[in-house]
């Protein structure tokens, strides 16, 4: 045997020693369901698109949003972001500003004119969509992507539903609404406005539609029986906001009372302030804590000068004044009248006590269950009538969240179900992996970074205009904010497993390809799993 100078024995490599045989547990890479995704009613792959945004791949990020939600710029303004409430980063500092990044991406798409190509071959099927609110828009968008011919019948003169006639411009500029609806129209969806559907079965038959999605929302403001004198000016919030949008400014007077405690009440109050009311007073029957309105809305209303009277009900309305009864919370926490009354001067009373759906289009020979004023649907948004689907506010029970986001989710789910129904197949149930809970993270690895705040218009500048209150993030801030995401439960290629293995038993497959374990040498120590920042490695028992 010849050996180099000063080496007397032949050398072999320890690679001959397959230490993998020691293992009692083996590591496996997993993809868990991030809590943000889990909380999104529109079914967005939030963590997935944030991952793209982290790298500055804004277009890819936007396309991932578009895979479920066709309205990112709207969503980045109007959504109440349940994703952020669920975000694991709360445990470290504050939730990731997901909504702000979504808005940035949505606005970027509008600026750049990005659109989604329709690549599916034409199916030859025609689908009717009734209503062009977020539910109808989402359904139409997904149906057209699936190759169907889609026609939307809309009763109002313009499309958008509550996106246009409800949510005020200072929260959702109409240019944004127009841009996102135009994009859907350009993809081939035909919108027919001022076309109210009186009877859905007739409309389907006359238009030779193979299926229909009904997303008619809840357009009628509730008018409870409040004894009123002739001179009293009483109107409801949705009609008022609708009027503002059509340029028919309601004469509210100097002193306006808004009755209710939901988001609609806040919007009515903030709109009244902008229309020049000297005083806007919100009257609500329960306490501040029990107000269904989102906290941010309540704070903004207060900041803009809206006064609030909790534990009060309106028991009579006359010209120029209201009779208010003081309430008290009983043992069960319910509001009860005290019999103590007070007068309150008011030029007008705006009722924001909820909305109902006009269900007359289901009259006649359709098997649609509308008990308690809600359209009942199955898990696939189908009504009792085959081929007739419904979603959005019209199908949301009183306890369900009535939001733009939920409406988009319903529309998207319905589109998939309609597609399957038209093809005569049953939808495979979606398998959702277990949750990427916070206890699976190794938070030490994440750099400290507090949340970026969006700029806001000063309260003093909000009085007499409908300028947008909340501003957008700069590109730099949006990138920063995206990078605050911890990629819960999904590998983000930080190389930690590759680095921390004492046995070099992790193979790095290259950018975008993630890693693989080399089970010839992995001893199953589990360090990779403990040290994975985002909890994307499980240790499972080995069965030798």
């Amino acid at each position: 045997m010849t050996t180099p100078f000063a080496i007397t024995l032949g050398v072999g490599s320890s690679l001959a020693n397959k230490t993998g045989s020691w293992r009692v547990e083996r590591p496996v890479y997993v993809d868990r369901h991030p809590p943000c995704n889990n909380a999104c009613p529109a079914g967005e792959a939030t963590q997935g698109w944030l991952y793209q945004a982290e790298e500055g791949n804004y277009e890819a990020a936007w396309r991932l949003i578009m895979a479920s939600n066709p309205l990112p710029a709207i969503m980045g303004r109007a959504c109440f972001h349940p994703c952020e409430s669920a975000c694991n980063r709360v445990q470290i500092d504050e939730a990731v500003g997901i909504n702000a990044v979504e808005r940035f991406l949505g606005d970027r798409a509008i600026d750049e004119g990005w659109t989604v190509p329709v690549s599916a071959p034409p199916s030859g099927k025609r689908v009717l969509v009734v209503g062009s609110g977020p539910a109808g828009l989402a359904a139409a968008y997904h149906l057209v992507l699936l190759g169907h011919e889609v026609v939307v019948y809309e009763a109002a003169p313009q499309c958008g539903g509550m996106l246009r006639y409800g949510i005020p411009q200072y929260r959702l500029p109409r240019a944004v609404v127009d841009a996102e609806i135009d994009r859907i129209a350009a993809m081939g969806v035909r919108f027919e406005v001022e076309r109210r559907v009186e009877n859905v079965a007739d409309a389907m038959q006359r238009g030779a539609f193979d299926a229909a999605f009904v997303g008619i929302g809840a357009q009628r403001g509730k008018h409870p029986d409040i004894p009123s004198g002739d001179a009293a000016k009483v109107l409801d919030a949705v009609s008022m906001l609708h009027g503002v949008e059509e340029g028919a400014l309601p004469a509210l007077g100097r002193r306006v009372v808004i009755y209710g405690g939901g988001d609609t009440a806040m919007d009515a109050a903030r709109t009244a302030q902008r229309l020049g009311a000297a005083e806007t007073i919100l009257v609500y029957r329960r306490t501040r804590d029990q107000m269904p309105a989102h906290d941010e809305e309540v704070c903004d209303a207060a900041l803009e000068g809206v006064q609030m009277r909790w534990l009060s009900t309106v028991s009579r309305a006359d010209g120029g004044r209201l009779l208010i009864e003081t309430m008290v919370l009983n043992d069960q926490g319910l509001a009860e009248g005290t019999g103590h009354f007070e007068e309150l001067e008011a030029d007008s009373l705006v009722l924001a006590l909820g909305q109902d759906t006009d269900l007359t289009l289901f009259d006649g020979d359709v098997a649609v269950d509308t008990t308690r004023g809600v359209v009942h649907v199955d898990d696939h948004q189908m009504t009792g009538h085959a081929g007739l689907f419904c979603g959005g506010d019209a199908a949301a029970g009183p306890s369900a969240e009535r939001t733009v986001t939920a409406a988009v989710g319903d529309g998207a789910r319905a589109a998939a179900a309609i597609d399957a129904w038209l093809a005569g197949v049953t939808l495979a149930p979606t398998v959702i992996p277990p949750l990427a809970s916070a206890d699976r993270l190794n938070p030490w690895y994440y750099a400290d970074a507090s949340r970026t705040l969006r700029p806001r218009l000063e309260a003093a500048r909000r009085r007499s205009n409908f300028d947008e209150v909340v501003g957008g993030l700069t590109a730099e801030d949006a990138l920063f904010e995206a990078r605050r995401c911890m990629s819960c439960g999904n590998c983000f290629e930080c190389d930690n497993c590759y680095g921390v293995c004492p046995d070099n038993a992790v193979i790095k497959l290259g950018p975008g390809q993630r890693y693989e374990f080399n089970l010839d040498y992995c001893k199953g120590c589990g360090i990779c799993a403990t040290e994975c920042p985002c909890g994307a490695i499980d240790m499972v028992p080995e069965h030798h």
Partner: protein
Amino acid sequence: MLSERTPVRFYQVGSFAVGNRLVELERRSAQSDPRRANSLSSGHRACAGCGEALGARYALDAAMRATRGQLICVNSTGCLEVFSTPYPETSWRVAWLHSLFANAASVATGVAAGLRATGRDVVRVVAQGGDGGTADIGFGALSGMFERNDDVLFICYDNQGYMNTGVQRSSTTPGAARTATTQAVGPQPGNAFGQGKDVARLAMAHEIPYVATATVADLFDLESKVERAMSLHGARYLHVLVPCPLGWGTLSKDTIALARLAHETGIFPVFEAEYGEVTSSVPLRHRTAVEEYLRPQKRFAHLFDKSGAVTSPDVVARIQALADRNIRRYSLVPDEDQ
């Protein structure tokens, strides 16, 4: 400040994780490189979760990167030598030399002298050993190497005991720790307090060009220290804390977590010094009470009951006091005015 943390922009995990797809290639760690040296390759016989195997690869890969592979490594006897080279196999992918337990520093001195004499001093020399080979039996050779300012980086992998021969006490074993020779019996169970050696401070007393400490929990810091050491000549010393699942009685998966706790509690201060003066220290990110570090270790089990409650508050307080002194001495909590 040598341990470079992301200066301006923010990159999700910053420089805490091994790699980061969001930063430029040159700023990533040696460990994240798919073509890293893998100085200690697979198939070695270290226990599952061995901190010493990990620490040695971290340090030598960084040294290999810093010297572009022009490196000779001298190893003293100990686990690191035994688990890596049972004839006819070797795990080393670096020029590697083993002589005895006590004399790694002297052999390295000789290697450096030989290279210089033959005009090949672009080749750099690292010597390495365990805490026994460094603080105890090898200390005379090491002190001589320091005193002569020989051109060698000596790396001690401190697992706080003679692990290879069955977990006997060394002069870096902490107070109260149970080992085979300091049983948890009698009025003061475990290792005695107030004895032992702080080798980094002893090295500083030699006023050599560079002394640093590091742990396997902070890779960027460790690599930057190796890099700094290799940019200098003369005697240099790096002391790396490497938890030992077998000797400490810990779960193999917790090796890095324990090294992190050793730092975050102040028990193991991470700093660097030049010519006898401390020049920087790594602040604690989340200051933690020492019992969080002690509780998971069986060698400290006699300080707790089965439920994990402290049963020897005086001993825990004494260890806490040592940690607090480190925090003051090395300014590990920057805003703290102590």
